[in-house]
């Protein structure tokens, strides 16, 4: 991925030298043509075409924003409800992610999910211990975490 971006910058500079004009607009045009060239030669690289990964990262950021707003609405409902009927508890969640940064991002996402907070990560990086505001719908939250977040993070690292 980093190599492809570097190559794209290099092609943009080559374009600027070919045009003998060194302003940002020429750079952008050259960057666009370099993008087309890298797309045409995508099967010679080891990793995917890098724009797909950029799209996945942007998607992950949007999920972060959405979860932050949703969790705030959920917290608002719990706190402002006249009768406090929450049932907190801690549950374990097995994760399939392996890299350290993936688990860090996943626990950040879970912390911003409505009603969950990561308390501990097991030593072998396989189980996350999560404190939930309402333990009743654990299965639901586990499946939603698995389906949306893990998939989005895997999409970035694929």
């Amino acid at each position, binding site marked *: 991925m980093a190599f492809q971006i570097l190559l794209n910058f290099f092609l943009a500079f080559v374009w600027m030298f070919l045009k003998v004009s060194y302003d940002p607009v020429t750079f952008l045009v050259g960057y666009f043509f370099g993008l087309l060239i890298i797309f045409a030669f995508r099967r010679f690289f080891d990793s995917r075409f890098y724009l797909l990964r950029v799209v996945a990262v942007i998607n992950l950021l949007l999920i*972060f924003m959405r979860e*932050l*707003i949703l*969790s*705030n609405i959920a*917290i*608002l409902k*719990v*706190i*402002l409800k006249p009768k*406090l009927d*929450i*049932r*907190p*508890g*801690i*549950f*374990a969640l097995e994760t399939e992610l392996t890299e350290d940064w993936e688990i860090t991002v996943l*626990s*950040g996402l879970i*912390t*911003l999910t409505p*009603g969950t*907070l*990561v*308390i*501990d990560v*097991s030593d072998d990086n396989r*189980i996350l*211990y999560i*404190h939930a*505001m309402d*333990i009743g719908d*654990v299965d639901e939250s586990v499946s939603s975490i698995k389906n949306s977040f893990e998939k989005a993070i895997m999409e970035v690292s694929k």
Partner: protein
Amino acid sequence: MIEIIRIIIIVLILIGAFLSLVAAFGVIRLPDVYTRNHAASKAATLGVMSVLLGTFLYFYAEEGHFNSRLILGIIFIFMTSPVAGHLISRAAYNAGVPLADVSVQDDLKTKKGSQVSVNQEKP
């Protein structure tokens, strides 16, 4: 156009103040450390973020001054506050703070039991 931006600024700052107020209520009302941490680490984050965003928009729209430090502040708060919440609750758990009225307390208890035995073996 400028009126719409002004309304957006007002709404953002009021939402931020309201969320911070709700976070303070949550810290007072909720029963134990962990649930209080939920309120403090989520509501306060979005509250401060939207106040900062409103301030940024105000100086950009009214004075034409693009203050990138506010953007950096928003990003840093967004990155650090979940980690802070995690570390506080982890430290509380390892110090043995009990949970309020726990219904399911899963493997963490057994894991903590094994840790205690390991600690007993060491000295």
